[in-house]
């Protein structure tokens, strides 16, 4: 069963003016599509590995045959991260977290503003291509972290709750070299219902 690219859950222009339609189209139809195609090509000669979901692949990279491990790491990671990314955004958001995740963020970081500032700073300092994440650690605390390229926090045993893509392709057409401007604008399109859903799955006992 080949991996497939799901359609974007909204129109290309739905996240305007924060993310432009052309960027969304290239990002989904070209970049994300390439990760899916490269993953399927890598697995073509490994039928035993074709039934594994992308989460399973990135959690168990050490067991993936060495000949395709690097390609799977990059492209299963790219497929998984981008799928999460589209779901983590939506049009017409308030820009403020709600529910259990809002409480947990306030408890851990002091306030949502302090959290955002720290997340933006970490994202600005990431050198090269990669992702900035809010993760749930093994001991069930919230943490801001980064991964290079298309690595997933799942490979390190951490559960991604929210991630922002800071590869230049995510923002170059609209923001060029101004990554901080992109990181700051992105909060306007974060889908906190989806973040709460992930938090609930990862940590069912968290108090609302």
């Amino acid at each position, binding site marked *: 069963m080949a991996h497939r690219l799901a359609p974007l859950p909204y129109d290309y222009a739905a996240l305007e003016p924060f993310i432009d339609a052309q960027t969304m189209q290239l990002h989904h139809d*070209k970049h994300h599509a390439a990760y899916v195609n490269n993953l399927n090509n890598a697995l073509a000669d490994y039928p035993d590995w074709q039934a594994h979901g992308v989460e399973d692949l990135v959690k168990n990279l050490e067991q993936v045959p060495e000949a395709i491990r690097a390609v799977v790491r990059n492209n299963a990671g790219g497929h998984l991260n981008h799928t999460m990314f589209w779901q983590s955004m939506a049009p017409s958001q308030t820009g403020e977290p709600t529910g259990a995740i809002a409480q947990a963020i306030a408890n851990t970081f002091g306030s949502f503003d302090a959290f955002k500032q720290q997340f933006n700073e970490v994202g600005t300092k990431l*050198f*090269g*291509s*990669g992702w900035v994440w809010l993760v749930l650690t093994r001991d069930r605390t919230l943490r801001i972290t980064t991964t290079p390229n298309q690595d997933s926090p799942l490979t390190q045993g951490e559960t991604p709750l929210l991630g922002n893509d800071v590869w*230049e*392709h995510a923002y170059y057409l609209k923001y060029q*070299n101004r990554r901080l401007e992109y990181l700051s604008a992105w909060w306007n399109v974060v889908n906190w219902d989806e973040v709460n859903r992930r938090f609930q799955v990862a940590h069912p006992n968290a108090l609302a």
Partner: protein
Amino acid sequence: MAFEQPPLPFAKDALEPYGMKAETFDYHYGKHHKAYVDNLNKLVEGTDLANKSLEEVIKATYKDSSKQGVFNNAAQVWNHTFFWNSLKPGGGGAPTGELAERINKDFGSYDKFKEEFSNAAATQFGSGWAWLVDDNGTLKVTKTPNAVNPIAEGQKPLLTLDVWEHAYYIDFRNARPAFIANFLDKLVNWDFVAANLAA
């Protein structure tokens, strides 16, 4: 004495007939390269490194995790200057003379070199660089992630192509292979390569 950004060796619109817009250089030279220079100067101000050459700073800080920021910025200052010099309006295609012989000797043919270089540039996952280097008398193609360069690795750099997305997104969008082919066919400054080889 602060590190300085050398001028671009051609007018910013000189490569427009050859696939690269002036706008690319407004950002790539005017913003990205300049930011590396400014960041490097801030990071080394008042330290011993401020009085060293750029090459010395790169060698002294490579693989020193406490100096990662200095290394990244110093190497990116050097890499970009080297990249501008690797470009020439109407360059590219096969080299001639002694350089052609060296390429035939070490790669088999210019076409084999082209294939190897294109492959290295296309497969450097994420941000980085593709290089032609002189490694102890043998010409080789290499690729490096992020800021890493052949000086850090003890090789002599001859030619480079920046494959960070900012290098090609304005002109080629996601199509990195088209950017690579355009570089090889229309932009490679073989005079610069020959001078580096002879140096």
